[in-house]
């Protein structure tokens, strides 16, 4: 008896989303990044197409990196006071994109004004040719004041802006539409909430093909497996033809690593766990590859060493296009 043919053909496809615009496209990026486009579950090239590799962004934060765990700070510490240097360094570290977090707009972290935030965006765009993700301060009112100024400042650059949430999506959706940016739709750990949000965004005119979804996330051993399953279920639905789940997935995971003791405790506190300078980046890389296995295709990380490790793993794993 021959080995049965177990190939599966799916009716759905993950949308390909391109971030960034080069000068020909009206922007100033030196390259663009496209994620998505898969026609099957992760990495099964015997039955499906994988036109684009997962992409990796490094976080640059307007609030600096003082509260980052020691091993991430070790790398970014010397540039963390200077957004432009930091962004430029991301490129050297091998990032595919820069993700600018606007935490300093948070009232507890300095309450940077919308104009100042827009200037931050401009300066980062000037400092690197990489495509840009811009992430708000995760406070609704603040984001609504700040993000429209930032989408304007980055008009033409085809950035990815986040996040739009069910309770707060209109302002960001409108400004992304006006300034032609892609948008991150964030719905915590639940497929139905995601679909609902995509409908709402569609209703205000956002093309579902311009959405990247964020199911929120936890680190390996710290809630990850729940989100792994959320992503995997969502992907199966997408491939089964559910157009509301066909968006590529981003995980903003850098900050989650800092919560895990195994990844951050000093050697003297935890000799049984081995060397911290190995543990910390590896934990972050392992979190990324775990999510990749579930279907995520864009990873926002903090530790450049972890980014390099995860990228090397992707080299060995991701089917050649």
């Amino acid at each position, binding site marked *: 008896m021959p*080995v049965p043919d177990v190939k599966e053909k799916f009716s759905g496809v993950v949308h390909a989303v391109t971030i960034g615009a080069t000068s020909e496209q009206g922007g100033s990026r030196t390259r663009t990044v496209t994620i998505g486009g898969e026609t099957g579950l992760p990495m099964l090239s015997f039955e499906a197409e994988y036109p684009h590799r997962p992409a990796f962004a490094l976080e640059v934060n307007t609030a600096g990196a003082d509260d980052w765990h020691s091993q991430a700070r070790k790398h970014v510490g010397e540039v963390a006071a200077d957004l432009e240097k930091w962004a430029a360094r991301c490129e050297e570290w091998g990032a595919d994109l820069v993700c600018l977090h606007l935490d300093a707009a948070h009232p507890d972290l300095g309450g940077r004004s919308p104009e100042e935030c827009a200037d931050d965006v401009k300066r980062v765009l000037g400092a690197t040719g990489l495509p840009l993700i811009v992430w708000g301060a995760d406070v609704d009112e603040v984001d609504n004041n700040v993000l429209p100024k930032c989408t304007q400042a980055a008009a033409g650059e085809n950035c990815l802006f986040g996040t739009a949430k069910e309770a707060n999506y209109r302002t960001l959706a409108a400004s992304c539409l006006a300034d032609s940016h892609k948008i991150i739709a964030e719905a915590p750990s639940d497929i139905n909430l995601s679909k609902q949000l995509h409908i709402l965004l569609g209703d205000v005119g956002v093309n579902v093909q311009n959405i990247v979804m964020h199911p929120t996330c936890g680190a390996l051993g710290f809630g990850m*497996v729940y989100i792994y399953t959320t992503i995997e279920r969502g992907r199966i639905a997408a491939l089964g033809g559910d157009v509301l789940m066909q968006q590529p997935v981003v995980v903003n995971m850098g900050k989650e690593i800092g919560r895990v003791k195994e990844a951050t405790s000093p050697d003297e506190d935890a000799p049984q766990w081995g*060397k911290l300078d190995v543990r910390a980046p*590896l934990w972050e890389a392992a979190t990324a590859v775990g999510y990749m296995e579930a279907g995520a295709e864009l990873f926002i990380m903090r530790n450049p060493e972890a980014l390099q490790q995860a990228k090397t793993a992707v080299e060995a794993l991701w089917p050649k296009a």
Partner: protein
Amino acid sequence: MALTGLDIYKLLPRTNCGDCGVPTCLAFAMKVAAKQAALDECPHVSEESQEAAGAASQPPQKLVTIGSGDRALKIGNETVMFRHDERFHHPCGIALLVNDTDDLDARMETVRSLSFERIGQIIDVDTVALNCASGDGEKLQEAAGRIQTELSLPVVLIADSADKLRPAAEGLSDGRPLLWERGGPSDALVELAASAKLPVVVEGDLEKCDADTQKAKGAGVEEMVLCPGEVSPLETLQFLTVTRRATLRRTYRPLGYPVLVRAWAQDPVQQSLEGCHYVDKYAGIVVLEVDSPEYVLPVLVTRQGIYIDPQVPVQVEAKVHEINNPTETSPLIVTTNFSLTYYSVLGEVEASRVPARILTVDTKGTSVLTAWAADEFGPEQIKDAIEKSGVFDQLGEGYRKPIIPGLVAVISGELREELEQEVIVGPKEASGLGRFLNNEWPKLVG
């Protein structure tokens, strides 16, 4: 073809003795029908019934037992491709590669050290893959014997020919080692495994595995483990997926065995990442050569996560937990009954050496923010839990000041009103608790 629960029920003794671990014969029959149990797990089923049921009553993926006693490794018998469809049942073995020429005492010490307590469970390297580097079967047997007796762990024996495996296989068959002849099994190994009744590794691509398992089965080998050999991580993952699919979706029994893989990458970081991948995607045994905790721990934690039953929240009892012998002046820490949350907090409180009470509110096993967002960890629920537990009665007048997680600082005002007591907002992460309890708490009750 497939038998219904009722068909199977008719083949059982119908005494409801419970020896199969299920209370009634009918319930057991249902499990067999759902391919979650094998008919022969009922110790009283007659041979005629077994024959009548035939192969149709067997789960499509064979359960393979390696080793013996408490620490035997049972792998296979998986029923789903995705954990959300049910759950993954038999946690894969994580095996450390050891050479029979190594300093065995040192290597066994290393294996022992790769054991960690996490969320109230022990997670450890639970298998040894012993390679016949000496090229001497007697030497392999001696090393395997020591590992079996001194570590009590299941052993995978690796050699390049059947005759090198023979002494250990024959001499140590009670310990049920898994026999891995590289590139095998040869006819000689099949014969050896059949007569010693031991599980064997069938190594090669899909076609070779398909042919070899049928041949070995025909020769009387019952338990087998597939292995794709030294191929790229991508090919390994695809092998794992295809064999699992052929088994579960097509009930194709020649590939209906668990899979052993080795993480081959030379770079230890990449080897560890490979291990994590294989654990998530269907491996039955993952062999690692890296042996320092920083590389092994992520693989163990990945296994702990992926084998959690997604239907059953991982929770601890909702009650007052007394830590370090608290008195009436000890702090009261409020948290949820999600195991991950509770053990994170417990670890810090224990390490702080401050005697304390931890009240776990019944949030149906969810984390602080998940529970808060789902209305399971608000002022009312916390107040109820405090009142029901009677914990205030154990505390002196000025000490009835519950400490709540910093992540739910927003509820402190309302909780204060509900309780008519002062409420203290703790740090956001449990890691800040040690310092908080030692330095700040005394001032707050001062």
